[in-house]
């Protein structure tokens, strides 16, 4: 059993996800869990394509998707999912609109530009090396001129084609009256082409055609790698969200049920929720009463009793009887208005962060342009002639072109992101890495973050083994969370025959003539305080046995808290739960500063206060009640089991229940920051050397080519050091 994911307890009916293509065939896309190897591909494709009417079943292993196309009514979406189950794979329908576009147009555009610049750079370099080798007089002027023109023939269209990603970004930035790193890159490429054409016309010695194509080639390598990793991290996060698309039974005016996707629910719709279902929207209970688990909504770990007329918040899990409810909001509006407002305010506060690369660009761009202008005016007034002064200024722009600077940040972040990916942490943006490295305070939510957020049998030692076995044989027949917890505690075993369940009350069976009952206190005629974390078991006329359940702290919670503290972070816990359970968890994890009974507003106020006092807080939380705080915090992480809203706003998402990757993430991001600064320092030193050479007119195309390639290579190799350890 997976812990409390939002999708747990929601049935996903694949039928609403079937689409029709132009030829009238039905198409269904499924996300498949557990595909690893060639055997899996063959098994699934053969297993599904032999179903009646199936025309094509194609697995994509990289994205873990299965795409099926079929005709006729003999095969249904349910049958395909069922067949996948028989083959041993869990398959989920998903909403393709909610997924990242599969075709990845941006990535292909970058690849095309990279291919063209690579082709142009290698061919122009062949010619340039001949020219450089023949500069001492071995090559005649006519041949050199021919070589220059052939280079130009390749380089001009090549640079204009491959430079488009930079041109677009530069123009977009200039339109907003700002200058990003792509402005000097664009200027460098265009001026290198213009100067080279002028030189070729005059039959000069030096052209920069090779620089004009090598520059975009080197920069595009970094940009494409950056794109690939971002996409990988993002699509994994999208998958989590898309898999949580759910269906629900809507009751029509005639009382007949119809299965619809949760996204199609409109306010006023009547919905039928079964025991074990999770309400996908905010709703009003029309009929039915029972306990609901609201741990994802408020952080409260104990079930809450509700009845007709009460409000059921989105994310509440029905434990007892089925209910008929009336939706009061659509899925996307099902956060209370206040929470949505807090969320927006938080995201605005986050928006003020300036990425390291942009901070560097803000310094670099005016400085380089100022220097180039100074070299031009200086040269002109010193009387070396307008043309020579212009040549020197352009050479300066080319040689300082921020290959190393442009690679400094993405190269380190790519390596850091892929290392965190292996450690089990999805990073949703590059600047999240920079912000995590800054964090000096960690704020944890309790339920579902520090704890597993599901009941675990606490008094197994106090109960006779025979009673536990017998009670578990009843419990295995039920899906109630306490029954499941009991069955889990007893381990695998038999299911008693003839178990009947009175929903919301308990279970009953007769074994060897002895009546057995398992359920609430009232079910076995015991007077308990009605504590919802107790389960009573009565065998015949024997005295009833009480099973006590409590939420359990995650195995690595205490060690993670200690590890973060060792890295200089101060630790706090903010819980929406009551005092007693919060104190227990704080004691078990070694957290000294904690507050219970915090509603979402109080949580955001605490983070606001931390920000105001100059602290940079890392928020770790999973519930809807944490979403606003996650958005407001300097940086945020949510566990794999978090609600969709929380995962959507968090900067990073853990891929499992474990918390340990957080400590590793702090180490990796701090190392990445160190490497970025080293790269910046190197780029600054490189420019400090290159600028005087260019100003003195000593930079030849050969020196420019060697300097550019070497500096890019050094920055890349430095970034690769991060992947070790």
């Amino acid at each position, binding site marked *: 059993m997976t812990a409390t994911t939002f999708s747990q307890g929601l049935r996903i009916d694949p039928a609403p996800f079937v689409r029709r293509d132009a030829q009238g065939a039905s198409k269904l896309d499924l996300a498949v869990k557990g595909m690893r190897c060639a055997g899996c591909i063959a098994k699934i494709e053969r297993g599904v394509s032999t179903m009646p009417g199936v025309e094509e079943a194609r*697995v*994509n*292993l990289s994205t873990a998707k299965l795409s099926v196309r079929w005709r006729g009514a003999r095969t249904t979406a349910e049958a395909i999912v069922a067949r996948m189950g028989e083959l041993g794979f869990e398959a989920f329908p998903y909403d393709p609109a909610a997924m990242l576009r599969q075709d990845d147009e941006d990535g292909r555009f970058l*690849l095309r530009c990279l291919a*063209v610049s690579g*082709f142009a750079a290698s*061919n122009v370099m062949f010619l340039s090396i001949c020219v450089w080798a023949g500069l001492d007089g071995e090559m005649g002027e006519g041949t050199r001129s021919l070589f220059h023109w052939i280079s130009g023939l390749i380089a001009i269209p090549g640079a204009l084609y491959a430079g488009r990603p930079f041109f677009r970004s530069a123009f977009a930035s200039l339109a907003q009256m700002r200058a990003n790193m792509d402005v000097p890159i664009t200027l460098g490429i265009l001026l290198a082409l213009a100067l080279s054409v002028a030189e070729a016309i005059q039959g000069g010695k030096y052209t920069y055609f090779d620089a004009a194509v090598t520059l975009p080639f080197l920069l595009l390598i970094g940009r494409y790698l950056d794109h690939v990793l971002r996409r990988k991290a993002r699509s994994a996060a999208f998958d989590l969200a898309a898999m949580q698309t759910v269906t629900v039974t809507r009751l029509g005016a005639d009382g007949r049920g119809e299965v619809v996707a949760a996204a199609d629910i409109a306010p006023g719709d009547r919905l039928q929720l079964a025991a074990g279902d999770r309400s996908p929207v905010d709703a009003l209970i029309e009929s039915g009463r029972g306990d609901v688990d609201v741990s994802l909504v408020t952080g409260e770990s104990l079930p809450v009793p509700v009845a007709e007329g009460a409000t059921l918040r989105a994310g509440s899990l029905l434990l007892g009887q089925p209910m008929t409810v009336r939706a009061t909001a659509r899925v996307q509006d099902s956060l209370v208005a206040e929470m949505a407002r807090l969320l927006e305010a938080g995201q605005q506060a986050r928006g003020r962060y300036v990425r390291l690369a942009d901070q560097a660009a803000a310094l670099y761009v005016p400085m380089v342009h100022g220097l180039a202008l100074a070299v031009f005016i200086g040269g002109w007034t010193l009387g070396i002639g307008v043309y020579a002064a212009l040549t020197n200024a352009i050479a300066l722009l080319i040689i300082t072109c921020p290959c190393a600077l442009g690679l400094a940040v993405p190269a380190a972040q790519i390596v850091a992101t892929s290392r965190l990916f292996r450690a089990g942490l999805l990073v949703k943006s590059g600047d999240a890495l920079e912000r995590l490295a800054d964090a000096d305070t960690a704020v944890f939510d309790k339920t579902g973050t520090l704890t597993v957020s599901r009941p675990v049998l606490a008094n197994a030692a106090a109960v006779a083994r025979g009673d536990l076995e017998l009670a578990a044989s009843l419990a295995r027949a039920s899906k109630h969370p306490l029954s499941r917890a009991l069955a889990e505690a007893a381990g695998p075993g038999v299911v008693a025959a003839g178990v009947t369940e009175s929903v919301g009350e308990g279970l009953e069976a007769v074994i060897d003539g002895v009546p057995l009952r398992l359920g609430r206190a009232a079910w076995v005629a015991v007077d308990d305080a009605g504590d919802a974390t107790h389960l009573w078991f009565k065998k015949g006329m024997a005295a009833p046995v009480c099973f006590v359940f409590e939420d359990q702290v995650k195995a690595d919670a205490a060690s993670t808290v200690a590890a973060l503290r060792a890295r200089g972070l101060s630790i706090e816990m903010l819980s929406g739960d009551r005092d007693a359970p919060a104190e227990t968890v704080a004691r078990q994890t070694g957290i000294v500063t904690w507050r219970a009974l915090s509603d979402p507003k109080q949580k955001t106020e605490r983070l606001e206060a931390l920000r105001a006092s100059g602290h940079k807080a890392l928020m770790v939380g999973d519930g809807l009640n944490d979403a606003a705080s996650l958005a407001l915090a300097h940086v945020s992480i949510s566990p794999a089991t978090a609600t969709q809203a929380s995962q959507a706003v968090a900067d990073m998402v853990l891929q499992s229940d474990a918390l340990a990757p957080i400590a590793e993430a702090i180490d990796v991001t701090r190392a990445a920051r160190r490497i970025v600064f080293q790269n910046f320092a190197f780029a600054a030193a490189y420019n400090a050397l290159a600028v005087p050479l260019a100003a003195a007119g000593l930079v030849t195309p050969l020196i420019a080519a060697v300097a550019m390639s070497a500096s890019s290579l050094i920055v890349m190799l430095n970034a690769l050091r991060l992947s070790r350890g």
Partner: protein
Amino acid sequence: MDAFLVLTIAAIVLGALGVAVFFWTLKTGQYDDLDGAAHRVLIEDEEDRPL
């Protein structure tokens, strides 16, 4: 000199051909499932049993 011109043009045409082929592979989606392609080579065709 003629030989040089012919060779230069031939080199560029061959290189351009390589770029064109790369564009074609990109367009036909041959990079969409790199992990899958690595494994598919190991799948035996059903009708391809040893004699």
